[in-house]
């Protein structure tokens, strides 16, 4: 008969985090701890201009005065910020002109992740800017992009090559003092991606970046800045995997999106940081600040599939400043074992006729806790603002939890706000029905979960959707006995 306790256990053990390997690449790492000297040292290592160093120091000063937030529905041991090394770069510098020159071991890592560059080049038409341990190692398709005037590079490079753009926009959506983690990121960010789409240009390919934590005990502080100039369009993909670690790893990224008049940014994330083992040991702390601003008639759409991390704290948000601007948030958050996620969005309606849509799908299994936290705010001048929110939770087993914290604040009577929420459970009857049709339990769960998540999966670019479905499957393996 199906699954004895013993078999289940064996199965679980053989399916530990499949990307849990560690690449032995020599790294250039700063000593642990954080003070002004470290901030200056990071800036120096990145050969940054002095305005950037000052900007970091300002952030650091603010951070020192700030308290780690405690309002989220998560419980964890706070990281010791003085026990972390804030900079680590793979050693094989300088950058390469072709893939042949790249450290073979690194390429091997990419292959294990299933993102072999040459394959990607040929197949998907995706330009990949890979951030591994903080420094961009390879950038492809740069030429095609350059022909259209699109800039897609690491943020360090942008600081050097395009200071006028960085100076103008960095910190305008997420200020240095925005919150504890954003301030920390602003002080010590090691690298990240920068993207600029010129006026009226439609980016011909999906831009994508794979992040990955590799060095033991190094926090990752990525900084991403995407600027869509007037009338332009870009679709940006971000995917993450990380190797297994015993100690908790801190990840505090900041993503800023700027959508100028009549432009559109589609930002998709598949997040699969190491969630810790089944006893809840290890795993990544993911404290991310993602926010975009929409000018007139602009649109920002966030799509995320969150399957990893021990603790997630993340609210991709839209400030709908311009009239007729549109914000969208589509999210699937999966938690299993001892994972905790507190995620959602903020839609701030400032302009007239602004519209926002929120579709959130939370899936909890094991002993995990999954919270949706969302704010819809309509300001005084936001005439005829509209919002539709839908939060669905799916529970597996009896030990997990799903929570919904919707906040609505409206100061304009013309606003129309709708909120729908459902909670359901995967039933034994559903599983048996699938079994009877020849579909085993794991596949049945995947099928049910995919069905539940369909509205969001449909929003992902094709190649990402396939990866996301696979991830959902991996994340929930063994969650129903």
């Amino acid at each position: 008969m199906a699954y004895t306790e013993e078999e289940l256990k064996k199965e679980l053990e053989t399916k530990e985090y499949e990307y849990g390997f560690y690449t032995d690449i020599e790294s250039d790492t700063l000593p642990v701890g954080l003070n002004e000297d470290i901030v200056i040292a990071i800036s120096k290592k990145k050969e940054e201009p002095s305005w950037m160093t000052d900007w970091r120091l300002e952030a650091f000063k603010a951070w020192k005065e700030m308290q780690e937030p405690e309002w989220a529905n998560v419980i964890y041991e706070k990281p010791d910020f003085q026990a972390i090394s804030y900079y680590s770069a793979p050693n094989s510098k300088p950058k390469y002109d072709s893939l042949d020159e790249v450290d073979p071991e690194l390429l091997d890592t990419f292959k294990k992740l299933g993102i072999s560059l040459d394959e990607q080049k040929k197949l998907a038409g995706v330009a990949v800017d890979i951030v591994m341990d903080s420094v961009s190692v390879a950038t492809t398709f740069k030429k095609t992009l350059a022909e259209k005037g699109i800039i897609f590079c690491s943020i360090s490079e942008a600081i050097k090559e395009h200071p006028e753009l960085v100076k103008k926009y960095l910190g305008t959506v997420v200020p240095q003092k925005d919150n504890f983690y954003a301030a920390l990121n602003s002080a010590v960010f090691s690298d990240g991606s920068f993207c600029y789409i010129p006026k009226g240009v439609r980016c011909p390919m999906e831009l994508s970046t794979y992040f990955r934590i590799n060095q033991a005990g190094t926090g990752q502080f990525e900084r991403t800045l995407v600027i869509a100039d007037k009338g332009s369009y870009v679709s940006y993909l971000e995917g993450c995997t990380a190797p297994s670690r015993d100690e908790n790893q801190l990840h505090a990224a900041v993503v800023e999106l700027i959508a100028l008049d009549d432009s559109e940014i589609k930002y998709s994330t598949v997040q699969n940081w190491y969630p810790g083992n089944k006893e809840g040991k290890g795993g990544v702390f993911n404290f991310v600040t993602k926010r975009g601003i929409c000018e007139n008639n602009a649109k920002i759409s966030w799509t995320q599939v969150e399957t990893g991390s021990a603790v997630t704290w993340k609210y991709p948000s839209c400030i709908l400043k311009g009239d007729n601007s549109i914000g969208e948030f589509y999210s699937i958050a999966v938690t299993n074992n001892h994972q905790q996620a507190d995620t959602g969005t903020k839609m701030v309606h400032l302009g007239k006729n602004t519209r926002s849509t929120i579709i959130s799908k939370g899936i909890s299994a094991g002993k995990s806790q999954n919270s949706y936290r969302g704010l819809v705010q309509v300001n005084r001048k936001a005439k005829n603002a509209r919002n539709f929110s839908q939060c669905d939770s799916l529970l597996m087993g009896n030990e997990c939890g799903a929570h919904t914290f919707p906040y609505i604040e409206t100061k304009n009577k013309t606003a129309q706000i709708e909120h729908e929420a459902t909670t359901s459970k995967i039933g034994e009857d559903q599983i048996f029905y699938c079994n009877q049709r020849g579909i085993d339990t794991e596949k049945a769960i995947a099928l049910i979960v995919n069905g539940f998540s369909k509205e969001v999966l449909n929003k992902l670019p094709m190649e990402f959707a396939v990866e996301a479905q696979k991830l959902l499957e991996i994340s929930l393996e063994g969650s129903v006995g």
Partner: protein
Amino acid sequence: MLKINNLHAGVEGNEILKGINLEVKAGEVHAIMGPNGSGKSTLSAVITGKEEFEIAEGNIEFNNEDLADDSPEERAHKGIFLSFQYPVEIPGVSVTNFMKTAINESRKAKGLEDMPANQMLKLIREKAELLAIDRKFLSRSLNQGFSGGEKKRNEIFQMAMLEPKLAILDETDSGLDIDALRIVANGVNKLKSKDNAIIVITHYQRLLDYIVPDFVHVMHEGRIVKSGTKELALELEEKGYDWIKQEATV
């Protein structure tokens, strides 16, 4: 094909089936009738391997193999199909996607490649036509918002797609109006062959007007208390179950 020997089974020590003996050969149609609570649905659940049911004594053989160690999906791969009395809803999963997954999982279990898309499409078209199902129906979420008749028709559509060796139809007639009943029954009749077998579980004779059984068995309190030919069903329709109950207690 199916051989049930002295089967005792139940839930959590509560015995529901108390010694069932039944043999079904290829090409045969058997009807199992009986009052509510006589164990008909339990029997179908035990044959298909639903987990909460435990076999205390006896066994079930399918093509001369004991099914005891087979999971529900393995039994399905061997060709056992159950048309559910209450089909479950799976939101967001279309009928087509569900069938594709089911067929390919069965193929995988047999070491076969996935069925090519064009072949799948052809199969779907052909079987949908058989049951007068239109294409829109196939894109709807499985059983979600389906009427009683649509649910049952969908069950038989799945049977047509999966081409089982043994199909158990558990109260397929309940909730069907007379037109739907005719379509479903005609579908089943077209699927009947000398190589497969069908067990029809029903309360009423009316389905048996359309799907004509070779044998009729009457269950009462976990046992088959009477077996006969299709005339037995007519007799039951006329006299009700009481005389069977009395006969059984004597």
